[in-house]
């Protein structure tokens, strides 16, 4: 960085424990928030609607899985299904109780998803690792089956893929077909920022430490007095809460339909890749991962055109898959700890720059 921590002395534990202890980092954060808020004024509609909104929503889902996998060490392949649960719960809530403000409906959907996650997290009490991964696959298939085959979840809509009801916040439509992209963007941004802040609070508090203790050495954690059952289940519940909110936003503010195909097993893997490539156990890494995984295919898709190459669309799509796959493999070999680790290494190097030691 262009600054050093030297001279920034702390005189109380409260100051040392602040979320962002270094002043320059705080300034950076304020600049980032200012840019995020200014985006609707400068960016075009395509960027807001097709890039910024899905990235922010996937950030929420990636943070959710990261809390579970990166901080508590419990693997889940059901994140897509939990997103679906959030979407359907939000739809049910918004249609059954139209008087509930939309943000509250979405939070209620998150809470309902947390309860579902709690149920599917129960196997984690007895099994670990790959076996747990397979057990959470059950959630993926069962929940999607449930939502496609029980018409109650879609209010008996004939097509089976209902459109979320339009709703306003402060007089502006944030969901439905009429909602402008800038309003949807700000709505999603508010959720993303709030949930990021909560995630940071959780991991620096007692509950975050108990998660990490279970992840690093579950036997020692148990003998310290941490209850593995309770700790793992809270991680599952909170992770599902995040995924549920992400799913609700995905349906309501991005694709504008409530449909199961948006939340299939590929979605679960996509979130898993975001967490792994971004960096396990790093909330900032979830941002990196979500941005990378969402934007990279778009970049690959449009790159040939920049160089004046005319490649047929189907070849581009296949090339995209190949390059993307190769990148992931290369990346995992080169830096298994993800983009967050690269960021940290870069910062450490720059602190000493231009000296080698």
């Amino acid at each position, binding site marked *: 960085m262009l600054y050093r921590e030297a001279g920034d002395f702390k005189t*109380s*534990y*409260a100051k*040392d*424990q602040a*979320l962002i202890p270094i002043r320059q980092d705080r300034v950076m954060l304020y600049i980032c928030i200012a840019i995020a808020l200014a985006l609707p004024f400068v960016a075009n509609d395509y960027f807001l609607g097709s890039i910024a909104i899905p990235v922010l929503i996937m950030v929420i889902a990636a943070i959710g899985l990261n809390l579970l996998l990166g901080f508590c060490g419990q693997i889940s392949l059901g994140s897509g299904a939990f997103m679906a649960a959030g979407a359907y719960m939000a739809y049910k809530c918004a249609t059954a109780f139209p008087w509930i403000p939309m943000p509250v409906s979405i939070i209620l959907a998150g809470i309902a998803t947390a309860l579902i996650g709690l149920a599917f997290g129960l196997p984690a009490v007895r099994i670990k690792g790959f076996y747990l991964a397979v057990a959470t696959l059950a959630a993926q298939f069962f929940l999607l089956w449930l939502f496609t085959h029980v018409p109650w979840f879609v209010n008996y809509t004939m097509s089976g893929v209902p459109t979320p009801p339009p709703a306003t916040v402060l007089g502006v439509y944030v969901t439905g077909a009429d909602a402008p992209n800038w309003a949807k963007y700000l709505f999603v941004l508010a959720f993303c920022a709030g949930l990021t802040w*909560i995630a940071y*609070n*959780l991991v*620096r*508090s*007692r*509950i975050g*430490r*108990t998660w*990490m*203790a279970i*992840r*690093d*050495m579950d*036997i*020692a*954690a*148990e*003998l*310290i*007095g*941490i*209850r593995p059952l309770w700790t793992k289940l*809270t991680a599952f519940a909170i992770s599902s809460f995040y995924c549920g909110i992400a799913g609700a936003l995905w349906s309501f503010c991005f694709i504008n339909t409530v449909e199961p195909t948006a939340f299939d097993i590929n979605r679960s893997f996509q979130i898993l890749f975001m967490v792994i490539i971004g960096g396990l*156990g790093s909330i900032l890494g979830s941002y990196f991962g979500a941005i990378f995984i969402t934007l990279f295919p778009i970049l690959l898709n449009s790159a040939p055109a920049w160089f004046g190459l005319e490649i047929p669309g189907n070849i581009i799509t296949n090339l995209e898959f190949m390059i993307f796959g190769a990148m992931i493999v290369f990346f995992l070999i080169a830096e298994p700890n993800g983009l967050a680790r690269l960021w940290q290494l870069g910062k450490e190097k720059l602190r000493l720059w231009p000296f080698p030691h």
Partner: protein
Amino acid sequence: MAETAETLLTVENITLRFGGVKALTDVSFDIRKGEIRAIIGPNGAGKSSMLNCINGFYHPQEGRITYKGQTRKQMRPYEAASQGIARTFQNIALFRGMSVLDNVMTGRVLKMNSSLFEQAFFFGRARSEEIAHRAKAEEVIDFLEINAIRKTPVGRLPYGLQKRVELARALAAEPDLLLLDEPMAGMNVEEKEDMSRFILNVNAEFGTTIALIEHDMGVVMDLSDRVVVLNYGEKLADGTPDEVRSDQAVIDAYLGASH
């Protein structure tokens, strides 16, 4: 220090079996409040199994454990921890991905009671507890002289320091009974001296009762008030270091028998 004859913990007729293997057979001894009690014996004698029974990680098939006047057939880990039993491990069992400070703070986890809601929004008890417990954690860090490494991830520390951090994590719980499983294994002479000093200081300053497994006889004889000797899961001898040292059975089994 052992002059207060009040008993903190009594184990009576403990038998622990793993399938057909008897790890402990009919072992009884007591630990008095404020003493340093050593458990010694050759490899495989059942010393660690004994500690695991005391803090509830293993459940003995027979026998009784009386702790703070309450008699139980077996302890449970959560129960043992909440009643003030802390321990360190033979093979370091630190939380490797966390910093030293976070490890020590995790040792205090049972003393924090803020709700999930308070923690999520970091207000009220969550905020005040973080600060109050940080002060307590810093006292322990100060006591064990690991100030300089408090923000280092534990995985990066050398072995000797990791052992010390593990002691810090156990001490952070402000235990009444501290179980140390080979706290000096693999250390050099200076590190052993440091660790011995810390153990004596913990015992003297906080009045913590300590049960200690150690192979270095010099250390055991110097530190402990009373020694219990196990061999093949059975109790061989029990008494002051001098008594144990002159016990013929112990000498034969362990200390100085010629092979």
